[in-house]
């Protein structure tokens, strides 16, 4: 709605804005943040319940074809054979080079401790809280991770995109930004806005953060790309600089009907997101990066009556980046045969998705196992090291 701002104009204004708000504690300029590690972690929450059995298809399991009907493709149906047992959904074909380069892996049959009610909303809340129950928990596990590390600055971690990420909510300060929101105000209006909102700390803090981040956002953003590409570009830019952690969501995984079509859209967004991160990270940043994509639950082992799948239990985690051990389908495969399924309906979860995430964080940052099992994921037993990180 505001007219496009020229670069000079933009810099002039943001300079003034910076002066007028210098007193705010959130606005202390940080040149090079002293995060105590140099690796990068990107967490993507796949909202809606991704059908792991469709994304990485266990075509080598004798029960697969019978359960899955028309959704069962396997290598004969155009899926890419990963290892003679699992095959990658054709919509993720753009990621094959990443797999071949050893920068893509999967962990199958993983889940949170959430069981039986199969509600998206509770499932997502628990995934982001990282606990075994939601009672009394207000913060997210990624925020608790930041709380355990000294020298974390507000620029260390970014929650990117329009939806607020519970994953990063909590006591540790993180930056919040959506690449398409920009402020364009006179310095006077900025001062008065400060004054008017001073009495409301939550409102005031969020507005201050918006001001700060407007200065950093690139004003020559390209238009017309999907929101997910812009989000990935923004995350890549920040991670190439001082940020060490970024988290955002990709929606659209709730494929109750005509899954062939609906999952294609979601998978295409996912592969574009990963390729954008890889392509846009500068220098050797990508080599130091682990991307972890996780979902609230998997879907039913059987295709339902409308060529889709309903809410299930065991799911799939996706790992990408130069820091991970690529080319593997991790996890303890429970099988799909009679008696193997959870409640005769869903893929049986054989490991806790939080354990996988914990091993990734340990591999990236050297965090103490005890801290991971008590402060970040209270009560978790990480089990033995699956070797997800190089």
């Amino acid at each position: 709605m505001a007219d496009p701002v020229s670069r000079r104009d933009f810099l002039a204004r943001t300079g003034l804005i910076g002066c007028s708000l210098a007193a705010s504690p959130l606005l202390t300029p940080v040149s090079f943040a002293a995060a105590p590690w140099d690796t990068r972690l990107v967490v993507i929450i796949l909202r809606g319940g991704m059908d792991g059995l469709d994304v990485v298809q266990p075509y080598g399991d004798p029960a697969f074809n019978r359960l899955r009907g028309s959704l069962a493709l396997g290598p004969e149906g155009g899926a890419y054979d990963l290892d003679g047992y699992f095959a990658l959904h054709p919509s993720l074909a753009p990621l094959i080079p990443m797999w071949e380069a050893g920068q893509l892996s999967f962990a199958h049959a993983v889940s949170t401790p959430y069981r039986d009610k199969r509600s998206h909303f509770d499932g997502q809340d628990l995934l982001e809280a990282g606990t075994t129950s939601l009672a009394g928990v207000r913060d997210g596990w990624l925020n608790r991770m930041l709380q355990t590390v000294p020298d974390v600055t507000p620029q260390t971690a970014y929650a990117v995109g329009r939806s607020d990420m519970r994953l990063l909510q909590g006591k540790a300060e993180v930056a919040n930004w959506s690449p398409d929101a920009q402020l364009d105000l006179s310095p006077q209006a900025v001062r008065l806005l400060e004054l008017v909102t001073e009495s409301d700390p939550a409102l005031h803090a969020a507005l201050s953060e918006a001001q700060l981040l407007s200065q950093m956002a690139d004003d020559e953003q390209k238009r017309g790309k999907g929101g997910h590409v812009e989000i990935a570009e923004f995350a890549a830019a920040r991670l190439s600089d001082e940020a060490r952690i970024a988290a955002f969501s990709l929606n659209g995984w709730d494929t109750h009907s005509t899954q062939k079509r609906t999952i294609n859209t979601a998978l295409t967004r996912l592969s574009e997101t990963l390729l954008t991160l890889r392509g846009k990270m500068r220098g050797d940043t990508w080599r130091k990066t682990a991307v972890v994509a996780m979902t609230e639950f998997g879907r039913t082992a059987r295709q339902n009556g409308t060529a889709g799948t309903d809410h299930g239990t065991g799911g799939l985690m996706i790992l990408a980046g130069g820091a991970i051990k690529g080319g593997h389908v991790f996890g303890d495969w429970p099988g799909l045969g009679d008696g193997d399924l959870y409640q005769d309906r869903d893929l049986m979860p054989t490991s806790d998705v939080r354990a996988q995430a914990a091993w990734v964080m340990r591999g990236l940052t050297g965090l103490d196992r005890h801290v991971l099992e008590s402060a970040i994921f209270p009560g978790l037993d990480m089990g033995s090291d699956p070797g997800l990180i190089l």
Partner: protein
Amino acid sequence: MRDFDPELAEIRFGYGLSPLYDAPTGADQILAGMAGPDTVQTAFPIESFAKFRARMVEAQKQREIRRKNRGTELAAAARKQRNVINREARMAMFVWLGQTMLRRAHTQTAFRERVVSFWADHFTAHGKRGVIRRGTSPYVEDAIRPFVAGRFEDLLQSAVMHPLMLDYLDQTTSMGPNSFRAEKRGPNKPAGLNENLAREVLELHTLGVDGPYGQQDVTELAELFTGLSFDARNGFKFRKDFAEPGSERVLGVDYGEEANVKSVRVALRDLASHPATARHLASKLAVHFVSDTPDPKLIDALEAAYVDHDGQLLPMYEVLLNHPSAWEPTVSNFKLPIDFMSSALRALAIPKDAFAKREEKWMRRFFAAPLTHMGQQWERPIGPDGWSEEDPEWITPQGLAARVSWAMAVPVRMIEPLPDPRAFAEVALGRFADDAVRFAAAAAESRPEAIGLVLMSPAFQRR
């Protein structure tokens, strides 16, 4: 003891103060208004779904023509015509956005608009493909609005069995595994249940996620629901050939000896009168209207009103409007973007014809796109649980940046001339205006910025 306060009533239970209309003087006046004629509905009409279906029929006709004449000019013309139909429906959707906001700006019973929006969100639905994607406002007009002052069980049936809901939650293709239709298809073309609607009816519409139901109840309810369907020409219909034969046991009760609509209605009625439903609805109303963390006594009182009056909604509203904890004098809940915009237009006394003859592009640029940037894309909540009630979800840097841009740039394009900002602060905020807002309204460099500052004040954004 706190009690009814006219200014707070307009802010907390309506769409804020207006320079044109007096605030209600008591709860009785609001409740009488709810029972009285729906004048803004007539003044700012929105198409009924029955009428909207004609668009779907038209689109279907063109699809038929294309199908039968593949590769010919006839098919190309039909395709063109279908695009016209789609475009017209899309344009209408933005007209209805305008009408919805005008109703809120010009009503004298603002509480009615609030409860319509509350129940429309409780029964979130939108169409999935083609013209029906634009049908949410007509759905609300037919399936929600006429029922908001009646009994919940009627509202529940009207929403759950509405074509838009059946489409949204995949009900129309859900087939009983032993239904006539499934048998006819044979083992090579398997068909079966889709439990999406059944699950959300239990989890969101009635018992609540903590309610006493399990997977088996979801599955059986899904079997009971098989057959619920619609077609564009006639609206709702029951497809006997999709229906699962035999009875289904939901929460320990057997339904559907005979597969028909009546069994579904009986089950929905029972769900409506379940104690867990009373609790769930009571708690949602309290959170929505009063605070993210409401007084448990208020929830108890709302629940009791529902149980004691056989699921009537007006007695619940009566409790809500008379309970002491509903009149906490400091404003708390953060307005959602569409409410923020609507109450800004009410305070600015937007002319009744402000959107007449405006092009779709204009409505998108100044209303629909900013709403999306504030985090609330018009009629497109992310999931069937509707928009979040939690304030932190809305108090985000990106969302507030979008509010600032809108508040400072859009009113000036709509209101000619803009009011004196000092007077506007008093009109919009009443006794909630504080010294900081008064100072800002007077000290701003321009009138548009001053108006924007008043709209961005905490006293305006909270209710």
